[in-house]
């Protein structure tokens, strides 16, 4: 089939097969991909609404045994720079989030062997006791796999316990590229294979949770492997319908072991548009302005995206790898309206919550991102002494009277 014939099929609402998608992605002019993706976006969202969420991306620990080669965020077990957030610090972040109109934490972190399942349960319960309406979008599939190994429990049981404790939904992080050849090269095969990632999402959907799916591209994968990733997501979505959104973002090479270069802006727009074409069963596509910057982030809205993602209050992972874009609600809304769309706040389920909050009440403007740990605070909170540690360094530290503090 020619590019032209496939384009006609897509324009008529047809579903592309793998080979057709490969041909489009490799050979279709960028404008054509944009036109097709924009038409699909318009069919799915004819009301010309573009959504965004006010939430906070909190990384509860940077200690991680997975050591993915593309990650600039993690610290090894026993590192003097390793941290875990205290419950009190997390409450404070929630308070600040509520202050700017947020209703959710995106809570993810490293695979810390010294945080047992009970710590997560206690945290979730404590959050829900204090903030009953606040939502926890937490623990990407590899973190769930890690907890299942740590607790020696099946994934389903871990998810059940986390739901009981207060988990509302699961973010689609840790997917990278859902092809094991790539995962082995990126040293993220052991944290979760492609099947394990899909398995956690299947279990979560069956347990009644909605989740997102992500794709980090631009490392060692081929264009065909990017599409294989999209087709795995599409396949599970056909089965469960549990994904609310798909988010593609480009690998950020700064300070990583893998190093290399970042995929270009045009490659991002082509990938996004192709995702809109392939993922005909996923309603929402997010713009990754965090990796692409506000300008290309906004242009995403012409290439298939219908959501501007999160008004970032805090971000640690992408920033560690070099990207440091920041937009508050006013800027996000300006970008949406400038592109000719109506901005609406949403929750994780993509229920519309209303008009921009800054038009309802005064909200402090934010021109920079908060960090995980404020200077001068203890890197390892005292409350950890109540939990079993696996590593020797953590066991010794939990016995010791004082704890190292973040240099101010």
């Amino acid at each position, binding site marked *: 089939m020619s590019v032209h014939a496939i384009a006609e099929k897509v324009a008529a609402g047809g579903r592309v097969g793998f080979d057709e998608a490969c041909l489009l992605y490799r050979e279709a002019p960028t404008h054509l991909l944009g036109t097709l993706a*924009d038409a699909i976006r318009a069919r799915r969202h004819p009301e*010309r609404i573009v959504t965004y969420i006010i939430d906070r991306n909190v990384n509860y620990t940077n200690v991680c045994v997975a050591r993915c080669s593309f990650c600039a965020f993690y610290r090894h077990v026993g590192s003097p720079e390793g941290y875990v957030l205290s419950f009190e610090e997390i409450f404070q972040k929630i308070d600040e989030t509520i202050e700017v109109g947020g209703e959710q934490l995106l809570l993810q972190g490293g695979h810390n062997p010294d945080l047992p399942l009970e710590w997560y349960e206690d945290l979730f319960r404590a959050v829900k006791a204090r903030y009953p309406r606040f939502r926890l979008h937490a623990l990407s599939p590899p973190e769930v796999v890690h907890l299942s190994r740590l607790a020696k429990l099946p994934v389903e049981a871990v998810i059940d316990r986390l739901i009981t404790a207060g988990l509302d939904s699961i973010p689609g992080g840790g997917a990278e590229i859902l092809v094991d050849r790539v995962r082995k090269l990126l040293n993220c095969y052991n944290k979760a294979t492609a099947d394990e990632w899909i398995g956690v999402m299947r279990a979560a959907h069956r347990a009644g949770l909605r989740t997102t799916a992500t794709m980090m591209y631009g490392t060692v994968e081929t264009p065909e492997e990017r599409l294989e990733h999209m087709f795995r997501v599409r396949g599970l979505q056909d089965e469960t319908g549990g994904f609310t959104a798909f988010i593609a973002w480009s690998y950020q090479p*700064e300070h990583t072991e893998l190093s290399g270069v970042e995929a270009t802006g*045009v490659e991002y727009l082509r990938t996004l548009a192709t995702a809109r074409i392939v993922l005909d069963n996923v309603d929402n596509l997010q713009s990754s302005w965090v990796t692409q910057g*506000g300008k290309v982030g906004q242009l995403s809205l012409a290439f298939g995206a219908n959501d501007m993602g999160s008004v970032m209050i805090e971000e640690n992972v992408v920033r560690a790898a070099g990207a440091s874009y920041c937009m508050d609600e006013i800027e996000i809304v300006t*970008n949406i309206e*400038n592109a000719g769309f109506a901005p609406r706040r949403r929750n994780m389920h993509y229920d519309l919550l209303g008009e921009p909050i800054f038009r309802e009440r005064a909200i402090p403007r934010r021109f920079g991102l908060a960090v995980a740990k404020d200077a001068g605070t203890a890197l390892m909170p005292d409350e950890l002494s109540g939990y079993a540690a696996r590593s020797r360094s953590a066991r010794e530290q939990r016995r010791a009277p004082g704890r190292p503090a973040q240099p101010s």
Partner: protein
Amino acid sequence: MATVLGEVSSQVLAGQPIPAATLETLWSEASDLVALGMVADEARRKRHGSRTTFVRVAEIPLEAVAHVPIPPAAGEVRLVGTPASPGDAVAAVREAVRRAAGIPVTAFTLAALSRMAGGADALRELVTDLTEAGLAAVAEATVDEHDDLRRDVEAVRDAGAAIARFTIRRWPAGSPVPTLQDVRRLQKTSGVVRSFAPLAREIDHARPTTGYDDVKVVALARLALHDVPSIQVDWRLYGPKLAQVALLFGADDVDGVQADDEAPHGPRRAPLEEILRNIRAAALDPVERDGRRAVREA
């Protein structure tokens, strides 16, 4: 909107100017951004095909002309700053030309030279002196910085000199079409506009332009200025991502690529590799040029 774009496409293919009223319609319709880009891309391809030029620029502050190292990889040495007197300007150009060892030297804004000269005849004499000192071109004519742009541009033309690029400091509020029409008229009567850079040189950090604004103004410039050879974007000012996307919305030339080949993050992230990679990733063919617009051999 689809009909308007269809008409514009036919006018582009026939090499006809696009009427101002049509340009205004294109500007006010945000919803068909990709379609607008496609028509601007047609106009760009009609003139340049997939050929995309770029220039590696060594910017030399005036006061440091005697000692700032000039990277040999530069394709253009650009003197920046405002000289105190015509004599200083000529001396600085002479020194830059001596040190540039054959790399074309461009210098100054036309507005600064005009202010210094104080009249058309004096400006023509000054530009003649600069050319005799070895100047390849006046670096920049900022279209919104002149009391009488046409007079100044004609003085340069009459001196037999060139202006490397026409730029805009800041777009007026509202539509860019009237300003683009002015540039079009200037080109029609003077023929000196080799290149227009439509992205504003001055960035208001409190109210930055959006990605939509930027690529729309690039597309509009390409469509409005049908007899201006080149539409240029600046690599450093707007960043690689936006500059690369602008190449799909009508731009064909990339200015301001870093000239030194320092690559602290590895050879694949050296400036030359970056620009080549970005142009190729947009399915375009990179061609390096110098400050006189001559193709540089690989």
